[in-house]
């Protein structure tokens, strides 16, 4: 089961997200992440959907997506041929004694401290999802209080 990043251009109107989501849920496919936004055209939205499945399942998913009337275009983004990014916000338990270590990690990963309180630090990290995964592993020992990710967005390079 490989992970696929599917980019779906859709009409920007109400109900479309429900159609797309319904298509996955009705077949029991779990979505790993989903990001929706407007595009260069105000009447078009892009949904970037990360989903796991073998090639046959993915072929069927793409066909079913294409079958939806509001779907304009479906593309499967290969990681080598596309730029993929994600934003993460994480709130860490950070008593003053531990802070220098955290600052160092933040610097190495070119992340950013975006909030600070007497007992916590909030960090923002942007980058390739795998890089963010690595960052999370490194900061986990300090105590993650809350973590949120936007889900990945992706553009093809050519």
């Amino acid at each position, binding site marked *: 089961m490989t992970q696929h990043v599917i980019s779906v251009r*859709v*009409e920007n109107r109400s*109900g479309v997200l429900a159609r797309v989501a*319904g298509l996955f849920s*009705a077949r029991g496919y779990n979505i790993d992440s989903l990001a929706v936004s407007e595009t260069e055209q105000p009447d078009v939205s892009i949904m970037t959907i990360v989903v796991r499945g073998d090639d046959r399942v993915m072929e069927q998913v793409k066909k079913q997506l*294409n*079958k939806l*009337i509001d779907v304009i275009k479906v593309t499967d983004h290969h990681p080598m041929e596309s730029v993929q990014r994600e934003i993460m916000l994480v709130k860490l338990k950070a008593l003053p004694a531990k802070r220098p270590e955290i600052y160092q990690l933040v610097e190495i990963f070119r992340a950013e401290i975006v909030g600070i309180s007497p007992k916590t630090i909030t960090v923002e990290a942007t980058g390739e999802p795998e890089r963010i995964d690595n960052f999370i592993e490194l900061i986990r020992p300090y105590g993650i209080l809350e973590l949120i990710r936007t889900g990945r967005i992706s553009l093809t390079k050519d």
Partner: protein
Amino acid sequence: MILSGAEIIVESLKKEGVEVMFGYPGGVVIPIFHHLFNAPFKFILSRHEQGAVHAADGYARASGKVGVVIATSGPGATNLVTGIATANMDSVPLVIFTGQVSREMIGNDAFQEADITGITRPITKHNYLVQDIKDLARIIKEAFYIASTGRPGPVVVDVPVDISKGEGKYSYPEKADIRSYKPVTKGHPRQIEKACRLIESSKRPVIYAGGGVIISNASAELRSFVKKTEIPITTTLMGLGAFPETDPLSLKMLGMHGTYYANHAVNECDLLIAVGARFDDRVTGKVSEFAPKARVIHIDIDPSSVQKSVRVDVPIVGDCRNVLADINKQVKAPSIKEWVSALKKMKKEHPLGYRDSEITIKPQYVVEKIEELTKGEALVCTEVGQNQMWVAQFYNFTEPRSFFSSGGLGTMGYGFPAAIGVQLARPDMRVFDIAGDGSIQMNIQELIVAVQHRLPIIIAILNNGFLGMVRQWQQLFYDKRYSHTCINIQPDFVKLAEAFGAVGIGVDKKEDVVPAIKKALEITDRPIIIDFRVDREENVYPLIPAGTSVKEMITSELI
């Protein structure tokens, strides 16, 4: 031109050339009904919304036109759901208008409110909630276009009451232009060429034709294809009539209750040519053992049907009619004489059959007599279950759009309301609903509609006092534990017919079968119920148990 929303709907329907509309009124659609009162098309008032949508479905299947339905919000709309799902599974073009509470009340749990676009999203080809009156005419244009093109299907248009009552500028678009919906109709020339070469080099080919042939009006092209290549052909339930079953090359129906020779032909073939069929589980049984020696050509307009359950060697996405016409232009006949004669021999040695009786009425005998007395020219609707399979097996269909049945969803209660739509579309033809005593009770309220419009539909109930198909499975697979399938406490169907103003005929003896059908055929101004008291425990054979292969076929009673 400034019109009310309700007027826009009626004007748009006129533009679409609608001749018949089916439906049921209610609070939020009163403004629309106000203008339907003197609309220049026929309105058929059902007695339950499900009846309306099945009737529109029957009308659409019989005529090839779009069936049009209207119902009110809430329960009116939810009562349509089974009918919409039925049409969706069998690719029937419908445009369904539902009333909705006014826009500012949506989401408020208002009286008779239901989120019908949400409910019908997975069972429609597309649906709309009209949010601005200026979109209404365009939406209706698109709804008809989407319903009737590509792989057809039902489209729901949900109209809030304040839109029906409100006013807006009306101009009906000349054509629907939807950038995200461009169905492919022509097959790819290279794929067609590949298919032709594969056909020409095949030694044991079989054509497997489905409902897509009928929907795309490709029957003539299919017949010339068979004539040219002499390849034996089997059809699915939905494909009955696509090719004459009386032809020596016809293997009749395949699948769970298909013929011995059709299923064995598919099992042995080296090339399977699927045309407008979707490899449904009732056809394939265990997929890994379906057509194990065959390469597969699959012609279908719906790309998502291709490679869905069976691996295909040559997929051709396109309209069956266009693709077959293109194939016919270049294909040469393969040399398959031995194969054809082997199949003809198998057909002779393992015919469909049943053990007739002089004491009881066999349901298959009734079906045969109906075919005989109508010269096989009747339009036949069925319900779902044993009645449906006996019709499929024992009535030889020769023309497209002459068999009407809920294939994909398997909706009991479909047949009779559908027959109303069929009879309205084809007033020149005799229409039968061959029913079971279970199914007919599911939408019997529609009988009064047939009486009102003097539709001489003949309802032939194969009455065995059981929910027969389930009982058969209980007998064969569940230790004869007939849990809640005995329904011999039932209405007197003759009196029931009379109470509705129809004609009722009861038949208990075999010798009365033919006279009863003859008598019914003489009546032309009202519906007729013939209650055939058939053998109670007759089963449908052959039977390939669900999820198994042709090796497991049960061909007759295991005693």
